[in-house]
């Protein structure tokens, strides 16, 4: 499995994709709570772009001040896994000229969605999840969860890890063999094929 991982990330392109996606997700998680502030600053013509960039950099420090140790940990993990997962998917589609199998896609789907839900400002709950529950008028329901909504962060980490594992596992099975196996199955029965094993 680790050989496949190394094979993918030996190429600087996929390292680049993973790093960029990880940073985008992490910066998004850190800056989303203050998107209104950034919009206000951007719309103020008296504030220079350099000052805006400095403010963005300063707001990134909220990982220390606005997150608990646990929420900071899973937010960073989700960001990294999100980047790795995306890079492997791109590798798979681009270089493998292949289609993802249902299990891989499903896990990736749930992993990405759960990861998106889990990410967010820890100041009293997951930002995205809180927003959506508030939209439904049940924002307070998070308080009844044992970890106040952080469960989605843990779930995101688990699903993205499983998804990455399954994608790597799938990469271990060259598609040409599947095609050959399918071809052989169309000609011979399973019992006949087992004689070759």
């Amino acid at each position: 499995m680790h050989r496949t991982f190394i094979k993918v990330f030996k190429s600087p392109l996929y390292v680049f994709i993973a790093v960029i996606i990880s940073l985008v997700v992490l910066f998004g998680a850190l800056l989303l709570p203050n998107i209104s502030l950034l919009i206000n600053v951007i719309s103020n013509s008296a504030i220079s772009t350099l000052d805006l960039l400095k403010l963005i950099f300063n707001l990134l420090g909220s990982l220390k001040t606005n997150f608990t140790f646990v929420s900071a940990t899973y937010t960073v993990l989700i960001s990294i896994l999100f980047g790795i997962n995306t890079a492997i998917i791109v590798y798979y589609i681009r270089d493998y000229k292949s289609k993802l199998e249902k299990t891989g896609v499903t896990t990736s789907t749930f992993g990405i969605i759960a990861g998106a839900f889990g990410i967010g400002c820890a100041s009293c709950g997951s930002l995205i999840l809180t927003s959506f529950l508030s939209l439904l008028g049940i924002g307070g329901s998070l308080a009844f969860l044992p970890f106040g909504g952080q469960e989605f962060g843990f779930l995101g980490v688990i699903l993205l890890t499983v998804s990455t594992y399954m994608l790597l596992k799938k990469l271990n099975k060259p598609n040409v063999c599947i095609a050959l196996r399918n071809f052989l199955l169309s000609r011979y029965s399973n019992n006949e094929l087992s004689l070759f094993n």
Partner: protein
Amino acid sequence: MENSNEKTNNIMLPVAVIIAGLIIGGAVIFTNNDSVVTEDNQPKEQVVENNSLDKVREVTSEDHIKGNPDAPIKIVEYSDFECPFCKSFHATMNQIMDEYGESGQVAWVYRQFPLEQLHPVKAVAEAVASECAAELGGNDGFWKFADRLFELTPSNNRTDIETVIPQIVKEIGLDEVAFNECLNSGKYNEHISADIQNAAETGGRGTPWSILISPDGNKYPINGGQPYSAVKQLIDLSLKEIK
């Protein structure tokens, strides 16, 4: 059959990315929405309005103000004594006041935003107690009480209010009998509800929620316990408006 499965699988990934994008985009849009907190302290959806920050209640002598009340920059903070991020932001704001308070450039206004559902009973009790401290000890009494309470509270509704509040009352020299009468009178319930309502009207959906009002009247929302460097930079940018 296999082809149709492959097609479904190929569609699922972009769909997943789109759904994740919609979730994040929806959250961004919703973050900028207006919401209102009702009597039971439940945020409820309200019609989207652009200038919700303008709804911040005017700062008056009735407010708890640290620093020069006529300072060109005012930071109005809506806070919860049981919120851990409010605790760290309180220290950040004290640091800000050490730097900008004496020169009279910044005033820090404290308003109540106890999150009853996250910190039942205790957050509201502490908010009431701080109002009673202000009634009996004036503005200084309020700030001494608030500073000490944040210092002693472990946050997340773990404070032993039966012990901690009387201890602070004794420490800062308030009349204990009058304080207890005030606590039980319920006279500040309406005031605290008004603060909560105003926090929600201005877009506050969690604590700490702060609004920096610049000399030109520009308003910058600060969501959560943001670092000292970010608050300081916003102050420095706002100070440039003074000619």
